[in-house]
């Protein structure tokens, strides 16, 4: 169950998009917002948040703290657990859900879904500290067109995904989901390919006879992680 902490210093408060939900009625004038009228101004991109606040503004005289979920600032560990669980659920949905499959791979609708033209993976999920906004980093393996199709298909199904996630996970407020393209895997792959090429060129320069089946000795200076033991 969510642990609601009303913090005096809003240092957990993430960038301005979620300040609309960092609401603490006890604080006189925090930088985020203190009155309901300011909420209505700042909640532009949040249709659902607006719903909450407009609902609340109708009975502004009542005790605002009773309203559901918006005041919660969850603990860090819980945020991580929720992020991991969302990643599992979304990955599972990408594999099993028919609607999503048709969205990312148009040829699945024709039946040709066993030989893939592009492969979509969820590489990372970031949850804001109040569990309201979820940024999902999606990495697509394939050509340009496949990437565009997959990402636009996912973005068009964001609301559907949100509804499905709400059914699968028991959260007080299902967060808003944003899909972002993740290029880090591809960039890393390009870098490693370039390093491979340099290494093979160096080997051909040094010993032009023996070049094909070199055991890879020391990758430590070229690795992404520093403390990985590379076993041949």
């Amino acid at each position, binding site marked *: 169950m969510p642990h609601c902490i009303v913090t005096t210093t809003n240092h957990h408060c993430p960038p301005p998009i979620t300040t609309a939900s960092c609401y603490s009625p006890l604080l006189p004038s925090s930088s985020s917002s203190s009155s309901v009228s300011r909420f209505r101004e700042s909640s532009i991109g949040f249709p659902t948040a607006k719903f909450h606040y407009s609902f609340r503004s109708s009975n502004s005289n009542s005790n605002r703290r009773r309203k559901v979920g918006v005041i919660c600032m969850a603990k860090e560990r*819980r945020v991580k*657990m*929720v992020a991991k*669980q969302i990643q*599992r659920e979304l*990955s*599972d949905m*990408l*594999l*099993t859900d028919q609607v999503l499959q048709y969205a990312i791979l148009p040829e699945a609708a024709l039946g040709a*879904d*066993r*030989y*893939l033209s592009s*492969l979509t*993976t*969820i*590489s990372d999920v970031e949850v804001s500290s109040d569990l309201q906004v979820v940024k999902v980093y999606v*990495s697509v*393996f394939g050509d340009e067109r496949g990437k565009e199709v997959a990402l636009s298909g996912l973005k068009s199904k964001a609301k559907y995904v949100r509804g499905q996630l709400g059914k*699968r*996970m*028991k*959260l007080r407020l299902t967060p808003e989901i944003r899909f972002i393209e993740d290029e880090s*895997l*591809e960039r*890393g*792959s390009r870098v*490693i*390919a370039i390093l*491979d090429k340099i290494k093979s060129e160096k080997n051909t320069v040094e010993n032009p006879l023996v070049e*094909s*089946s070199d055991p*890879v000795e020391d990758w430590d200076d070229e*690795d*992404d*992680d520093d403390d*990985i*033991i*590379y*076993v041949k």
Partner: protein
Amino acid sequence: MAKAIPKKGSRGRIGSRKSIRKIPKGVIHIQASFNNTIVTVTDVRGRVVSWSSAGTCGFKGTRRGTPFAAQTAAANAIRAVVDQGMQRAEVMIKGPGLGRDAALRAIRRSGILLTFVRDVTPMPHNGCRPPKKRRV
């Protein structure tokens, strides 16, 4: 049926016969779970030639599930096979997990031609009851 007990002498050399095969075309199976990635290289019929996983590459614990571990596992598995002369391969991917993407990119980087990429995640037609939902 009990397995045939190998007689002394004549049947003892079956194990060493496998490593001399030359296969130009093979199948690479990638099983990518959330905590680990296993890459198995087989021939077209399904007989395993070599395999490697993130755990056998020296990673332990949570690092086995990372994409970097997946690409080292794939590179390890393929290196043993490229020497045997495999040029084309079909890839079968199973499971969710970060290893799917990373291992695929590693395979493409290694110079083996990818003919097909297939997803063979086992999908029940509503069979066994899945484990209970995790409470967060």
